[in-house]
């Protein structure tokens, strides 16, 4: 079922920058989609069109078979929540609890419902014990988790995330990845994530759309998209590091690798298979 349908979307900023040049993409319910692209490729501008923060200069964005401009003000935000790149842009209340409750308050819910949702959202991002803490006393990683909680408290059907892993330490990345994976797989929330971190994509996402100069130049599963390193370099991107290693082993050391592994797990399987085959090849003649 198609949740979002974007057709020939164009956007120009007042300073003359043409950020989107005719984007076409469909987002399916329950999928985990990555919008991958170099800095300035138009990822954030596209995300801002998905929840109506920016209005299309040309083309259309359709949500649940209805154009975004046909929705009542505020109705889109109930369905599509966006987590911004810089937590300081999003966290506006003095304490964690107040900030997470901000969205539900604007939905005009009852006080008990607001507090219930705020507590559940904090539980989901494992930050319940920080409820009374002042926002300025949080670390960067904690702030990012509170940003996600603030959006989850609005119970959106689609979650947009703009570079959620940027500036995080490895542990922070792992925590956010687990949270997002749980939200997608267990809660069924459709997630669209803008990133330029290629290593993340094959681990989490079902589908990748690569953007360059305001258009989507390639789209498909990570296995389909991450095949040609030269093409990616032309888009100011690269293969995931483990894939680069495997590609080097294939091309320079002539290892018999057929399909390029994109994750550590896939690489481990491929290498184990190769080692076992090699061992069998060495052992077999003597045995026979």
């Amino acid at each position: 079922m198609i949740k979002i349908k974007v057709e020939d979307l164009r956007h120009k900023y007042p300073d003359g920058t043409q950020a989107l040049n005719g984007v076409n993409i469909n987002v399916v319910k329950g999928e985990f989609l990555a919008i991958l692209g170099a800095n300035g490729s138009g990822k954030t501008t596209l995300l801002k069109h998905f929840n109506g923060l920016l209005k299309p200069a040309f083309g259309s964005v359709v949500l649940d078979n209805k154009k975004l401009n046909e929705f009542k003000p505020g109705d889109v935000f109930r369905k599509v929540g966006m987590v911004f790149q810089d937590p300081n842009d999003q966290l506006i209340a003095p304490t964690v609890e107040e900030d997470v409750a901000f969205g539900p308050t604007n939905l005009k819910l009852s006080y008990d419902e607001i507090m219930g949702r705020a507590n559940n959202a904090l539980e989901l991002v494992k930050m319940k014990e920080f409820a009374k803490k002042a926002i300025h006393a949080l670390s960067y990683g904690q702030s990012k988790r509170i940003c996600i909680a603030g959006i989850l408290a609005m119970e959106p059907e689609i979650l947009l995330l703009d570079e959620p892993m940027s500036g995080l330490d490895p542990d922070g990345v792992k925590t956010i990845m687990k949270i997002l994976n749980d939200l997608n797989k267990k809660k069924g929330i459709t997630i669209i994530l803008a990133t330029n971190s290629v290593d993340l994509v094959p681990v989490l996402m079902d589908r990748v759309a690569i953007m360059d100069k305001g258009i989507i130049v390639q789209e498909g599963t990570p296995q389909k998209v991450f095949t040609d390193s030269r093409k990616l370099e032309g888009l100011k991107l690269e293969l995931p590091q483990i894939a680069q290693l495997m590609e080097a082993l294939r091309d320079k050391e002539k290892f018999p690798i057929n399909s390029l592994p994109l994750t550590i797990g896939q690489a481990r399987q491929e290498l184990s298979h190769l080692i076992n085959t090699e061992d069998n090849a060495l052992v077999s003649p003597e045995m026979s």
Partner: protein
Amino acid sequence: MEILKHVVMDHFAHRNNWLTNIEVRVKLFYIGIGLLLNILSNDIVIPLVFLVTSLILLKTIKISFLNLGLRMIMPLFFGVFIMLIMGLHKGETVMLSGSFLGYELALKKEGLLIGLLLFTKVVGGVMLLLLLSFTTTISKICMAARWMKIPETIIEVLSFVYRYLFLLIEETETMMSSQRSRLGYVTWFKTIKSFGNLGGVLLIRSIVRAENAQSAMASRGYDGGRVLTIHLTPLVKNDYAILLSCGILLAFLSYLGFFVYS
């Protein structure tokens, strides 16, 4: 910058102790009436009582003299300044005289006494406010403000100022360090130039930040409603008991200040 950071840090109010646990409305009642008595008093006794009691109360929750001193520097400076001005301008009985830069100056007793009263009022009043700020978070003050029917816009502005003050200090500190590391403060001329740049860049950044915050708020459904949600719980027996004790203390002080020493 370090001193400013030290002065605005509010982690004391987030701690768990007997003063932070007192209901915010009870504290505001005591401090509000206290400030009023402090302003209206004709004698130094009431301001001094507030100064000493606030100091004792803050020491019970282990607030150091350093933390108090840093926050008192400016009020003390202004207090002394007012006292000197009063001593120079009012009264007839000369206590001390001399010349300064060709001007004949004389400190007079009556003026100094008025100055002393004003000085104690400044110090007593600031101490009462410090008692509030060391023991009450801004969220609780906003909650109490809403309970007192203070307009929502004022509460909103108060919470934003609190939230973004720390961010402003942080950004200023980062930019100053960056300027300093590129020799931006080695001469007077460069210092003035760097300060000018700093102010300009901070202004532009504030505008950008405000725009981004507005987008983020809009995407969470904000259309001019409330920023803060949490309500105050009803007052309990214990709160009424403390309220009564505060009332008796304040009534006793009023009697002392307005009937015994007036």
